[in-house]
């Protein structure tokens, strides 16, 4: 199982830096393998940036970081053409989006105009400048972070644009013991500096191709569709998971299965990933908010109530 070993080594690498956050590391790798993007949502100081940097370093990828501020312009993200008086021509100076792994920090602090520049790039894997389309180098992986507690001067991403992210993750605080370990490590040199890459970009591309070959049985496809449908029909849900959501769940499940060393997807994979894939795609009715019900809870209930396929009709 060479593939699995490689993937495991990425996670181990991240774990050197991030303590007690194995599932976040795993999910990030899942998104990377499934060619999706991740939205990390949490309060400042829990290691969102560190997480992304560790991942970038492990893959020996071209890492870029965009710190979003209210006065950031789209050209600051995608790049700008500058007139060179020497040869009397415009030369394109690529912006920070032109990297393999891009950390978009505090994405909700910039104007919608700038946000959409990034999101368009994420969706198309290309940017358009002065009528010229420039492809972004592959693999292309964006990890955006946003701070959920600050509302003053922020521009929350519209629901439709949240759809562009494959997964939405929450870091959460470390446990008591983990936090002590964090402190202990902070005493010495920062481990991120010593991190070496374990997978090359080419190897990553191969892995991404392998993900696409993971078998998703009709039974499991049916199960994914049933889950998506159930979110649409739920009493508290105003807008359920779209077909794009179903596709996302399938791709993520494939990646997760590969990560677990399997060549086929099981309902367990689907169940594990459903909250991370679906939660940010659901728009709840106001009464759900009054009742204090979160999208994660709804997905949990949907999973409990949707029957898992355990029988083949005939083979």
């Amino acid at each position: 199982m060479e593939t699995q070993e490689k993937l495991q080594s990425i996670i181990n690498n991240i774990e050197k830096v991030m303590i007690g956050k194995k599932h976040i590391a795993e999910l990030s790798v899942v998104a990377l393998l499934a060619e999706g993007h991740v939205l990390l949502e949490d309060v400042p100081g829990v290691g969102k940036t560190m997480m992304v940097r560790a991942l970038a370093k492990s893959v020996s990828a071209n890492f870029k970081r965009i710190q979003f501020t209210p006065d950031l312009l789209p050209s600051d993200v995608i790049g700008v053409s500058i007139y060179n008086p020497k040869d009397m021509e415009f030369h394109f100076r690529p912006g920070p989006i032109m990297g393999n792994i891009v950390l978009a920090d505090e994405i909700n602090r910039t104007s919608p105009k700038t946000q959409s520049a990034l999101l368009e790039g994420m969706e198309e894997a290309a940017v358009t400048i002065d009528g010229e389309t420039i492809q972004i180098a592959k693999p292309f992986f964006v990890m955006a972070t946003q701070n959920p507690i600050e509302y003053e001067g922020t521009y929350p991403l519209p629901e439709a644009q949240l759809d562009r992210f494959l997964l939405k993750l929450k870091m959460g605080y470390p446990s008591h013991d983990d936090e002590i370990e964090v402190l202990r490590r902070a005493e010495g040199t920062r481990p991120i500096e010593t991190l070496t890459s374990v997978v090359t970009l080419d190897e990553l591309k191969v892995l991404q191709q392998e993900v696409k070959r993971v078998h998703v049985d009709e039974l499991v496809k049916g199960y994914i569709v049933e889950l998506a449908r159930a979110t649409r029909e739920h009493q508290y849900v105003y807008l359920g998971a779209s077909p794009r959501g179903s596709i996302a769940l399938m791709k993520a499940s494939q990646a997760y299965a590969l990560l677990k060393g399997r060549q086929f997807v099981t309902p367990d994979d689907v169940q594990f990933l459903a909250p991370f894939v679906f939660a940010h795609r659901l728009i709840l009715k106001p009464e759900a908010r009054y009742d204090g019900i979160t999208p994660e809870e709804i997905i949990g209930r949907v999973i409990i109530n949707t029957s898992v396929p355990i029988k083949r009709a005939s083979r």
Partner: protein
Amino acid sequence: MSNSSIVKWTSLMGLYLIIFWMLVEWLMPIVQLTSTGHLGLFLVFIVLCLGSNIVNLNGVLSFAIKFLYIIWFLMYVYLGTKFFSVDSMMKIAGDFGISVKALIAGDWNDVTDSFRSILFFVLLWMTIYLIHHWLTVKHTVVYFFLTTIIFLCLIDSLTKYNADSAIIRVMVLGTLLMGVLFVNRLFNGSQVKLQAKHYTMLLIPLVLMIIGSSVFAFLMPKKQAIVNTPDSIAKLMDWKNGQNAGIGKIGYVEDDSKLGGPFEEDSRPVFEVAAKVNQYWRIETKNIYTGKGWVRKPGDVYVHTFEYGEDIPMSLKPGKEKNTDVATITLKKDYKFIMQPYGLKSIDQPNDEKSFYIEIDGEKIRPSINEQKVLLPKYSMSYSTPEYSLKALEKTKMSDLRKLPKEYDQYLQLPVTLPERVNNLAKEITKGEKNVYDKANAIVSYFQYNGYQYSRTDVAVPKEGQDYVDQFLFDTKSGYCDNFSTSMVVMLRTLGIPARWVKGFSEGDEVSSDNGTHRFVVTNNNAHSWVEAYIPGVGWMSFEPTIGFDGFDNVLNDVKDEENEGTINPKQKENEKAKEEKQKKAEQKKKAKQEKEQAKKEEKKKQQQLEDKQSQNETKTTSKKWNKVITIFAVIVLILAALGYLTRKKWMPKWLLLKYRFKGKNNITIDRLYNDLLHQLSLNGLSKEEGQTLSEFAKLVDKKLGTDHMSNLTNIYEEYLYSNGASTMDKDKIIECWEYLINRITG
């Protein structure tokens, strides 16, 4: 003895103490109701049985002790010897032999008391054994608890035994028992060691709850029981003896809504009459036929009051003035109504206090003081028996019936459920008759000549959905006055002739005579019912359809053509008619002789047909036998199926094991194996939930069974199920895991 086994032992002691008290609750009513003595000795036996279970006595030893105790009991109770002796042993053995013989012969009454006691002891023994099994193996006594409650409820409601407090005691004891057993089950299911501390911690809230709820229930206001059935057992016994209803005692009863069923003789006198002639005594009429019996119109009773000596407005007009007679009634039974002779004119005993009222609907006359019904022990009445002119009767036409006023419609009421064939029969019987009177008489004589029987014992009660009249006319053809009279009223009504059902007493027996005044005694046996029909232009007229009764002698034969003068009984007339018919038939026979040759061929044909019919009948009887066999077979199959279904938890895994072994591993598919396993697991309380994935479920099962076989098997199955099927399976491992799990399920 370790700490936990002491706890176990004490808890078992406690449980048996509760069981003992519950058994006492069983014994109390039995002893009281069957007046069995020696309750104490029975209790000692129970203590013996329970005690030997608690100390886990050696099987042979405990059997010997119980056996000896029973023998000693028999000797002590039935022979009075306190100690064992060969003589008494022999005597008991003799009794035993006699009883066994009696049992084999089916003579239940010859079974000796000592044998009954033995049986009772054996029953107790078995019951306690069963309870012991429930307690220690199943850890539940729901069945015992439930049967105790049901037993006490039945005993309380069906017998005189008052189980009010017993039910409460049993409820409290039973809930306590179940609670303790639940705690035991909890400890048994988990690996936690049984400790006195835990035990008491769990039991204290239970006891508090039971005490609290009992006190609460005791203080709550209670509703009084609605139905009081003190004699239900007696009724049940009656029901067992009779087919459907109890054997009634003959006599005058007010409720006729459910007719039918056999009657017993009752020759106690009801009243005595002093009159010139013996006659029928009318009490009331009823108009509404329900299909099962007769009822009065619900709602208000319209009455007409009158005084002594005043003319009474009866619908049936009295006869001629010159024929007026007086009859004196002396009641022997406290009936608060008047026995009316036909043609009643007035009640003659001057008395200022009492007055009378007649219920217009039904014509029942009641004496009263200040509108209160009272008893009039002795009274005399003047009456003139009505007489009807045969001439006038023969002039009546059916078409006149249509001109009758609306008030007679109530005498044409019929239930909608009345089968059509009753109407058809009535039409058939009366086809040849023209006038209303003859039509009525045709029905009277129909009963005489068509195989109907008078019987007080062989009388059926109509089944659900069956009509009383229809049953008598076509099915049973056996009954007493109610059957005949009701049938006649109903048939008259189907023809459009207004008719009503009359109740009262038939003629009594003469006991003495003095100067033309005769004394008659009317007994309960004389209770009777007959018919009154309305003949247009003539009025109400009484008819006697019941076989064996003389009927009414009230038709004045004034038709000139007839040779006889004076009165004539309609039945006599019918007899004559029948004679004439016989003569006619004889003539017809002569004619038939002449046509014999022609008929020969036809007869042959008929014989052929007859033979055909006989053979058909034979096949019918054989098919009936087959039906019986098939029914029995079906019942057996059903019972076996039910048993198999109920015990499927036990045998199905074993059967599956055999089945798959027989099939051989190359023919086994994993999905059949796995799904069978899932089914067996769910039967044994390990069922997968809807949203649970197989691996989650497998982990759960493994945790419960303490293995990892389920997860291993599930991994293989999941790969088979969700991958594209390229992988090869290790069948030996599959079968190994599967067999292990199946065996674990069966325990």
